[in-house]
């Protein structure tokens, strides 16, 4: 053993030398291209966002015209920007509701569909369909359902005149209406991911559990669930990401205002458009990055602890 350990070091450089010029080029490209892409498209803009958040840039003119204003934008956001507080609350609520609602439902649906029911593929298609529909169509479908004057839901409930429920306009309930719509898509997404994971589970495990006399529930909790751990983590992360970047349906309904404030819609309102408040919007985006970082750190700690 000791002999081998001594012999090993000289062997290494010889291996490197065996790489041909083409190999070196290939490796260099494989490292360089993704690095350039990630730095250029993710880290660069993210850093620029953080820097811009300390300026009052309005998107017009050269970099030389940018004035640094210190923490002014953050101060404005937290003290005299009324939609900010609701936006934070709504994102947190979104996260909580997604976990206990659509994510759990998606997992349950996947487990049921995994049992080779008759017509399982039809159910799969039905539940997955919302995920592939275009944003414009999703917005339109829910408009038809929720509309106060002409909506399906109010008709079905048989409400008339003043008793009709203003699902989109009432700031106390419109977030819940949107959560239902967003959850409708999220459930299908989670279902498909989980179903794919379940299909990959070695059938021998189930057979072994069955031979040992474990029931359905016990098999799932004690055998399948632990095997599915990597998929579970993926689903956890996806739910967090989807909740933080929740945007599209709220935007389609009323541009994320009047009860539907979300950090992402506030960033968009401020940054996109003519004469945009790039500095202020960047401050909001930076706050979003900071919140996401908290979740990323928690996730990384979890993963690293596991590897030990």
């Amino acid at each position, binding site marked *: 053993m000791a002999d081998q350990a001594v012999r090993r070091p000289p062997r290494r450089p010889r291996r490197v030398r065996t790489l041909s010029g083409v190999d070196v080029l290939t490796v260099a490209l494989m490292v360089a291209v993704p690095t350039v892409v990630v730095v250029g*498209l993710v880290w660069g*803009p*993210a850093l*620029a*966002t953080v820097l*811009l958040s300390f300026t*009052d*840039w*309005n*998107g*017009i*003119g*050269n*970099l*030389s015209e*940018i*004035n640094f204003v210190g923490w*002014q934008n953050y101060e*404005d956001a937290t003290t*005299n*920007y*009324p939609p900010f507080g609701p936006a934070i609350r709504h994102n947190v609520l979104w996260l909580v509701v997604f976990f206990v609602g659509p994510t759990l439902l998606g997992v349950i649906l996947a487990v049921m569909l995994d049992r080779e029911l008759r017509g399982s593929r039809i159910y799969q298609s039905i539940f997955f369909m919302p995920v592939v529909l*275009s*944003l*414009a169509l999703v*917005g339109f479908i829910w408009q038809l359902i929720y*509309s*106060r*004057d*002409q909506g399906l839901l109010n008709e079905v409930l048989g409400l008339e005149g*003043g008793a*009709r429920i*203003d699902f*989109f*306009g*009432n700031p106390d309930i*419109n977030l819940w209406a949107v959560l239902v719509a967003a959850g409708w898509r999220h459930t299908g997404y989670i279902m498909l991911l989980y179903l794919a994971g379940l299909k990959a589970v070695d059938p021998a495990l189930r057979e072994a559990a069955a031979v040992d006399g474990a029931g359905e529930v016990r098999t799932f909790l004690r055998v399948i669930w632990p095997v599915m751990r990597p998929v579970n983590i993926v689903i956890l992360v996806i739910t967090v990401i989807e909740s933080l*970047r929740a*945007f599209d349906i709220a*935007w*389609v*309904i*009323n*541009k994320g*205002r*009047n009860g539907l404030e979300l950090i*992402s819609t506030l*960033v968009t309102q*401020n*940054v*996109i*458009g*003519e*004469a*945009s*408040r790039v500095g*202020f919007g*960047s401050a909001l*985006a930076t706050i*979003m990055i900071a919140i996401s970082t908290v979740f990323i750190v928690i996730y990384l700690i979890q993963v690293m602890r596991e590897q030990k």
Partner: protein
Amino acid sequence: MMNPRPLAGGVSAMAIRRRTLLKGALGAGALAGLAGCGGGDDGGGGGGAVTFGSNWSDEVPKNAIAAMMKGHDAEVSINTVDHNSFQENINNYLQGGPDDVFGWFAGYRMQFFAEQGLVGDISDVWSDIGSGFSEAMKQQATGADGKQYFVPLYYYPWAVFYRKSVWAERGYTPPATMDEFVALSKQMQGDGLVPLSFGDSDGWPAMGTFDYLNLRINGYDFHVELMAGERPWNSQEVKNVFDAWRELLPYHQPDALGRTWQEAAQTLLRKESGMYLIGMFMGQQFPEGPERDDLDFFPFPEIDPAVGADAVEAPIDGFMMAARPRNEEGAKDLLRYLGTAEAEDAYLAVDPNNVAAHDDADTSGYSALQKKSQELVSGAKSISQFLDRDTRPDFASTVMIPSLQAFLRDPDDVDGLTKSIEEQKASIFGG
């Protein structure tokens, strides 16, 4: 997206943008800024076809623009961009390589870019075409520095619309004063009608109500100064506007924040409501033929006799020139042509949903509504452009829309609301 003209392209444009949104947009903004540093000066002479950046992307206006450009004696190459995308990217567009001539809006929204040096001075064009436009039109084409930057094409007034058949049946007559307006509203309620259709889900329709109350209570000059950030929003004058609005709220259609303006138009169409304060584009919601011909309007009533009712809200669309056009001579020639009655006639022959801005435009083909609109605007002492065109766009969209919606939700806290608007105004206009 703040433009009061509805456009079908909006939602799909939004979908494309979704992914690039948070990281991409910020990065693109920063890159555009960087690119601006090394921007070369390729302006000046040079020939070639004049390029025209068009935001008239819907089918009918697009054809109208094409017909209009055909009338010019030189070649024009038209680049059409989706209306909402054009508006949202206007910053990058003007700082990148804009077309020689492009479509835009009058008012502060034009002055803002003129002040930033992003559009070209066309005062010399105006010395040729000026005689064809009223003084109010010229005022709307003039920047803060007194030079002209804009050639008007058409406008569409805001007014109180109603169905002639309903009014004839019930014997209603157009009110001239606020007292008559309130009395009529009460009568309509007694008749089982909703007096005023109202939908503010998109946020901008309520701006029309605010503007008209402000114009009638405080006058046009106050409106301009308030929008320019020169007057405090927590003043008694502004509070009076909100107080007057609160008095009128019982006659508005309830639950307006969940209703789009199109749905509100449907209540007027179905004869469930008596009136609707909105822009002339609302006619699109009425099927062509007897239904659309049944539409009529009256100007927003007078509140204070000392202020009168001669200010009209009529957003104007038209053309501007890039700050450094590749073909300046050609661009100015084109603008001279666009400022003629013949050019506007060519446009309106294809898209008759607006009213020509030119004094000598052919009005023989106008519908009754168009004729009445023209009379309303040509008789107006001053023309306002709508809240989101008369003030900074960022202030309009990030402060005024949420604030007006907050007012509609809770009309009683005017002091807190106006204080909050003033604080936010200070942080936006402050620099």
